[in-house]
């Protein structure tokens, strides 16, 4: 089965791609073998992140960008992330509603994912799913993420270009937008520019950018869009191309990708060490004994941690 899936991904079988994504999301045992095997076929996709407040118009923008990217003849994968309910683990994934026009285009592959309890706002699996879509032959992978609070900052870990979508009304005057989100934008979109207040939003963003003071090599452009009639989407597309050109010609793309590899390895090591330790420790008699000894003040958490670490066996690191 594993082999069939791997071959399927490389040969462009979307059923196998879809299956592989589920295995990754479910943290199945086949996951690492699949990702290792397809790795040589990755590295070609350009990754575009789109984030912003709920209802800002992210999916509608993706829908319209798809039109332009397809006109260029590019094959596109979309990963649309919606929040998982922390109480039930369930989710309603509704981003496809806005992308129905592309449902039958065989060069477009859309996958909806729940965050599944990952605080990053991006599903833990996102990074791996990008790899699958890359190996599948997508030229561009678009990630739409839930923009709640600080979490969307995670997106710059995976995206080559990050678009932050704001809207005029919504009371989210730029000053009130959480610190962090302004910094991650490579391109700003003020969507719903048909609503009153768009000018103000644009100038607020502009002021914010000037406030930084320091001269930047790339000043994020601010694009107004109205997805209802498509205005501004062409300009957005050009801004994305400009940014890509800037990253490529300045060598930053290469550098960012190298940094990403570094971080990936560290993340993987951390994850493996953690899960191995946890498997040996959780619920073990020694662990429970230490808990009660700490409760009765016979020992302390610091000493206990050291004692447990001494007994850990890291030789057979678990996947």
């Amino acid at each position, binding site marked *: 089965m594993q082999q069939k899936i791997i071959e399927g991904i490389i040969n462009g079988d979307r059923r196998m791609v879809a299956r592989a994504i589920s295995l990754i999301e479910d943290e199945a*045992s086949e996951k690492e073998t699949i990702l290792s095997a397809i790795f040589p076929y990755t590295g070609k996709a350009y990754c575009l992140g789109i984030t912003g407040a709920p209802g800002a118009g992210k999916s509608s923008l993706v829908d319209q960008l798809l039109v332009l990217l397809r006109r260029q003849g590019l094959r596109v994968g979309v990963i649309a992330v919606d929040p998982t309910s922390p109480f039930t683990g369930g989710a309603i994934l509704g981003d*496809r509603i806005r992308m129905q026009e592309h449902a039958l285009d065989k060069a477009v592959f859309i996958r909806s994912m729940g965050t599944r309890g990952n605080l990053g706002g991006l599903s833990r699996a996102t990074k791996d799913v990008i790899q699958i879509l890359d190996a599948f032959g997508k030229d561009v992978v678009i990630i739409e993420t839930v923009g709640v609070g600080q979490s969307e900052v995670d997106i710059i870990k995976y995206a080559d270009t990050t678009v932050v979508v704001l809207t005029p009304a919504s009371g989210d005057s730029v000053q009130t937008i959480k610190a962090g989100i302004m910094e991650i934008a490579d391109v700003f979109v003020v969507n719903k520019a048909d609503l009153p207040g768009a000018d103000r939003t644009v100038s607020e963003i502009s002021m914010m950018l000037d406030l930084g003071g320091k001269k930047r090599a790339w000043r994020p452009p601010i694009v107004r869009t109205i997805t209802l009639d498509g205005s501004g989407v062409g300009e957005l597309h050009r801004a994305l191309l400009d940014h890509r050109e800037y990253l490529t010609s300045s060598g930053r793309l290469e550098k960012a990708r190298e940094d990403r590899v570094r971080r990936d390895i560290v993340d993987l090591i951390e994850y493996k060490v953690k899960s191995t330790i*946890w498997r040996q420790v959780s619920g073990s008699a020694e662990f429970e004994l230490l808990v009660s000894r700490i409760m009765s003040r016979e020992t302390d958490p610091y000493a206990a941690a050291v004692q447990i670490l001494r007994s850990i066996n890291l030789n057979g690191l678990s996947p």
Partner: protein
Amino acid sequence: MREEKKIRVLVAKPGLDGHDRGAKVVARALRDAGMEVVYTGLHQTAEQVVEAAIQEDVDIIGLSILSGAHLTIFPRVCQLLRENNAEDIIVMGGGTIPDEDIEELISKGFARALFTPGATSAEIVGWIRKVTAEN
């Protein structure tokens, strides 16, 4: 740290008629039961439903029917699933479907279960859990 396999359900409202209240109620109930519901909205063709189901790798396709188009839509969805080697995806439905049509669709294998408006969320959730566990 393998997670439990999540049940994924595609909920669509094919056909041309207006509202999707029923479909939304079911979608919420399934979410509250811990499932992932891919909601694709109104006016879906059978082709769109099947393509979405494949890309989303769902276990179940749930079609909400009000318009009386059920005698064409269910067979068509099943045919497309077969053409795409995806007949392991289970098809169910709900809505206003006359009893004799329900019998026909089920006996011909075009739907595994059809729930009429009287069905409770708990029944639907229980049924999905049961058939996905068997699959």
